[in-house]
Each structure stands twice: as C-alpha cells, then as structure tokens.
C-alpha cells in the first residue's frame, strides 16, 4: 500500500487522478489531498514526510507547483519520493524548468491513464535520495 499525495486546486482533477490510479494497480493506496502548495506542505508535515509519491499541478493559487518544489528543496526533502508535476502548459521551456528544479517527471494534461501508471511504477521502483527521507 502506498500513500500518494494529490495536489491540485481542482477537486475534480484530484478525483480524476485518484480514479486513474485506483483503476491501474493502486486500489489499496491512500490518497491524501491538498489544494495548493502550502496545504501540501502541511499535509507532508502531518505525515512526517512519509509519503511514497506526490502528484502536483503546476498552476495553483497561493503556492504553485514551482514554489512547492522550491519549498521542498529548502527543507531538503526534494528527493524523498517521486514528485510528478502535471501541467496543461505545452511549452517546452516550462517543462524543462520544472525538471531542472528537481521534479521527477512532467506529465501533460489531459493525461493518459497508461502513461500515469507507467511513470509512477517506474519511479516507485527506482532508488530514492536516502538523506531526504530522514525524519
């Protein structure tokens, strides 16, 4: 069982993503939710940063996806688990920036269910940054 944090200001998008994951091998996982980067940081602190993966929208009010990545980096938690950023922005430069800042993967909306589960499966199977997982 995994704990997968879903961060998006649209509860429709959070639910849609959860449905995709449940239908693609993650039915027994837990899906805490946050509606922006600040709330996501609060949820992570509640869980003592023990989450297995994070899906995060890029465009959100208050603290957006890039701000959230920077906030994780400032707390030295960026490599603790796969961080998959979702965006409807098709620009290549924006995508590069997200990956340069430290996201594990970038998926474009509308996302493909097979692609979501394949990317998550690959990232969950890969080694993590042990120092970022320290309590």
């Amino acid at each position: 069982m995994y704990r997968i944090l879903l961060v998006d200001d649209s509860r429709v998008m959070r639910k849609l993503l959860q449905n995709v994951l449940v239908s693609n091998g993650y039915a027994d996982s837990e899906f805490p939710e946050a509606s922006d980067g600040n709330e996501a940081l609060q949820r992570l602190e509640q869980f003592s940063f023990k989450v297995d993966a994070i899906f995060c929208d890029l465009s959100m009010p208050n603290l957006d996806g890039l701000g959230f990545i920077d906030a994780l980096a400032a707390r030295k938690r960026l490599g603790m688990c796969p961080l998959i950023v979702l965006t409807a922005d098709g620009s290549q430069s924006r995508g590069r920036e997200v990956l340069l800042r430290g996201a594990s993967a970038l998926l474009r909306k509308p996302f493909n269910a097979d692609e979501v589960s394949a990317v998550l499966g690959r990232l969950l199977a890969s080694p993590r940054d042990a120092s970022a997982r320290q309590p």
Partner: protein
Amino acid sequence: MDPLYGEALSSVIQSVMKVVFGLEVRVIASRIEDDKKAPFEVSGIIGLTGPVQGSIVISMPMALARELTARMLDERDSERCSTRDISDCIGELSNIAAGNVLSRLDPRKASGAQMSLPNVVMGSHKVVWGSKDAPCALMLYESSLGVFAAESNVRDSSASQEKEAHYVSHSSGR
C-alpha cells in the same frame, strides 16, 4: 471537413463517458450545421492549432453537467457540486475528448497539433463561432441522464494549403 474528425469524436465520446462516468451513451442524430450554435447551457470548448485547426465543443444542459460532476466526485447530492466543480468537470471532459481525438488521427496529419486550455461557457443562446473554412459536425447523444451534444469544427491545414494551391494554379491558368 474530413469525416474522420466526426467519427473519431463520436467514438471518443462514447468511450470517455463510459470510462470516466460509467455512462452508456448513443448517437441519436448527426448532421452538418452552418450556424454553429452550441445547443445547451454548458459548453466545454477546446481550440486546436497547428496542423489541425478548429475547435471541439461539448455542450449539455446544466442538470446533466451537475449530475456528471456528482458522479465524478462520488457526491450523492449533486447540489453539493459547486459551479467551479461543474466547470472543471466539463472542461476536463472536453480536454480528454479532444486529446483522444488527436491521438486517434493519422500522426502524419496531427503531429504537432496543439490544444488550448479548456474554456467553459455557461448560458443559453450562445454561438461558438469556429473556423469558417470547416463546417460544423454536430452529434447529439442520448444517455440515461439526458441528451447532450458534441461538435467538431476541425480541418487540417494541409487541406487548406491544397485548396490554396488549387486556387493559385486555377487563377494563374486564366
């Protein structure tokens, strides 16, 4: 209009409604329209640019939009769905449908096509003006929750380039 766009949209709508909302739908009417009126109150609109140009519109009554949103969110009481929820739901439905239509087209024609962010318009008697070079294929669907429509107003730019080339050669031949 390449009939493939209408066929692809029709097939995609049936598949997406089943997968996302668990709803069986069937086409009850299909026709070419000139005046491009989105026939219902709530419309999700996706613009397409690049080698494939135009728009895809999904239009439905507010009551159906609310019910679909409630299904997606597992809300027993659809009145608990906010206008923002409904807008997000219909926008995402349009986004998924348009993305799937592009993925089913011949990559030689559709590669590099760009989709706009979804726009959702609420209100009756609106007109969505699409590309004047492409007629609008309107499909009406029936479901247990009500009737809705999908419109494809799409052309590929290679077709217009061929048309222009034909016009130039025709003109210069005079």
